[in-house]
Structure formats: C-alpha cells, structure tokens
C-alpha cells in the first residue's frame, strides 16, 4: 500500500473529522485550549494505532458475528490503559479532559477504522493508518483549539506554554499561555459548545471548498489534455 497516499488521506482527503465526519463529540467538547487539543489528539493517536495493530493481527481468528463486540473490548482495554497512565503521570491533562478520555471507547474514529480498514488489511498498513488518521484528527483539534482559544480568551497555547519566566513548555498544564489580547475582551461563547459547533462547521466548509476546488482543477486539466490530444 502506498504510504504517501495513506498520509494524504489521513490528513486531508479522507480526514476523519473534516471529511469522514466522525468523532465530532469530543472534538467540539474539549478544543478550548491547546493543551487539551494536543493531549486529546495524541491520546487518540496512540489508542487508534494500538487498536489498529491488535485488531489487524487477530483479524483472521475473529468470527465475523462477534467482531464488533471484540473490537469494543480491545478498544475499551486500550482506552482504560491510557486513562490510567494519564491519571498517574499527566494528572493535569486527565483532569482537563475529564470524561472525554473514557469516552474515546465510543469514538467512532477508532471503531470506524477497525471496521473499514483493519479487519481487511495487514498489520503494517493498519499501523500506518492509525498514525496518519490519528495525525489528521490531532491537526483538526489543534486548528480548532487555536481559533477558539484566541477568540474566546485571547490566548495562545494555554496550559502548554509559560512565558512568565522566559519561554518554556509546561507539561503539567500550569502555563498561562501567551496573552494576545485581554481575556475580558474575548467572546467567551467561543469556548462553549456553541463556539465548537461554529468553528467545526466553518472548518468543514473550508475543507469541502478546498477539496472541491482541487477536484475541479483536476477535471479541467484532464479535459485540456483531452482537447490537446484531439
């Protein structure tokens, strides 16, 4: 399988959130600070990759009738492991994401990829599919976080970047972020679910527009080539 094609599919042409439109609930709920977005994105990436590999590895011994039940058990297992590890070693993130870490169990991206991809594909392809789809998801989360955090509270990199004593990254979520304009001027509605819907809707629209344009261009080129051949 073509890795480059898999990469563009995960990040752009078949992006889990913007094109497949799955895994939207957490996307809207947690994208309020960059810290949350990156944390959630990486958690999903790790869980997705692990699940993809395991499901692909056991795809031949899973009876078709109970495949969904087995997928859910495997997914729930990895999610719980990540949940426990986060609680133990990155408690600030676990607190910020709250119930949305356990809820990755029912995140359609993971079961969707298991059903649509891993149960038919070899382990290696499934592994890269997990990485690329996870990256695609993370990128969307980061984009939404940046927009919502900036408009909602006038900040960039809340929880992750500390500028009080020189520039440094904080992994314990204590960094205040870079204040671009005073917090009280922010439209705090952007940090609420409403802002999530708005940002996500506009992002999806922009993505569809870009994809459509690219397609039109491709079609036009093909037509020109045809004309020239005549």
């Amino acid at each position: 399988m073509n890795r480059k094609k898999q990469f563009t599919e995960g990040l752009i042409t078949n992006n889990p959130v913007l094109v497949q439109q799955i895994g939207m609930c957490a996307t809207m709920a947690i994208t309020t600070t960059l810290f949350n977005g990156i944390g959630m994105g990486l958690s999903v990436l790790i869980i997705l990759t692990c699940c993809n590999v395991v499901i692909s590895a056991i795809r031949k011994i899973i009876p078709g009738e109970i495949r969904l039940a087995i997928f859910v058990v495997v997914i729930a297992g990895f999610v719980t492991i990540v949940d426990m590890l986060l609680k133990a070693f990155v408690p600030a993130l676990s607190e910020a994401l709250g119930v949305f870490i356990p809820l990755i169990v029912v995140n359609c991206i993971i079961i969707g990829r298991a059903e649509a991809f891993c149960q038919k594909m070899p382990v290696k392809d499934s592994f890269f599919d997990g990485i690329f789809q996870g990256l695609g998801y993370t990128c969307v989360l980061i984009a939404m976080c940046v927009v919502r955090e900036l408009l909602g509270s006038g900040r960039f990199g809340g929880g992750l970047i500390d500028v009080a004593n020189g520039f440094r990254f904080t992994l314990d979520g204590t960094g205040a972020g870079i204040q671009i304009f005073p917090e009280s001027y922010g439209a705090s509605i952007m940090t609420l679910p409403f802002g999530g819907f708005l940002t996500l809707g506009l992002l999806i629209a922009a993505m569809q527009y870009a994809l459509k344009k690219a397609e039109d261009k491709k079609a036009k080129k093909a037509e020109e080539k045809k004309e020239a051949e005549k």
Partner: protein
Amino acid sequence: MNKIVKLALVLFAVSAIVAGVLGVVNELTYPVIDAQKQAKTAAAFASVLQADRFDLIDFSNPDFPTVQTVHKAEGVGYVVTSTFSGAQGNITLAVGVDNDFKCTGISVIEHSETSGLGANAASTGEVGVNFRKQFVGQDESIALSNAGGSIDALTGATITSRAITEAVATSILAVESLS
C-alpha cells in the same frame, strides 16, 4: 450449538486477556494515582487553613449529609470537605473554618463544571482567585449578593456559585455543631 459455544469462547478469551492486562496496568499505576490524590488534598488543605497538621476526626451527623470528612488542626480550626451537586456534576470542596466559625478559605478539589463558566470557581486564574477570596472571613449567614449576601456570583455560573456558597455555609454549621 457448537458455533455459539465457539463464539462465546473466543469472546471470553479476548475479554480475559484484556482484563488481565488491565489488572497489571492498574497494579502499576494505582499507587501513583493514590499518592497524587493525597498530595492534592494536602495542598488543598494547606491553601484553606494555615496549620502544621490536620487530624481526621469522627463526624457522622445525619443533618449534614454532604459533609465527607472533618479534619481538626489543633488550636487553629477545622477543614471540612463536602461533596454536593453543582451545575454539571458533583463538586468536592475543602473549606477552612477557624475557631470563631469564620471561613478561612475554600479550595475546589474535584468538579466537572462548564469550562470557562463554572470551572472558573476552581481556576488558578484571576477570576477564580478573586471568586474564592470573597469567602474568607464569612460566617454561616453567607449568601450570594442577589440573595442579600455579599458574594458576587461567577459570570454565567449562578448555579455553581450558589452551590459553593451553600456548601460553605453548611461546612461552617457542621463545625459549629461540633462544639
């Protein structure tokens, strides 16, 4: 019939393996998580009442169902933790009370309030610090400003603010009931 047995066995085997792995991971992470919880509670106690040590005392009064624990700091006062419902879920709050039954500070230990609104009650930002500062020195007659008291509610989070204010009053009354 054989088929059903086979399906059940496969599902059982997968579940058993996953459960085993989870058991191991839990064994490894539980002590760390527990230590963190204790450190967090200790930090919350230290931020609401200045004392060298806190001794858990027996408190079981059916009039105060929300009160979870009461710690006594000899000669200084008490720290009451209570769990009650906020706007979205349960809030666990530590309240420091001195020997004159005045609040010495509050700290939110656990909550699931709306980010940007009710969650400000626990935030380390200016909004949260100023909100919590208002409780210092209050007695059991504490109330929100719209109910005749002097506590300004958090913007857009009246339910959270009211729940916390009531919990502080309850905590003070709980300490009063001790003497």
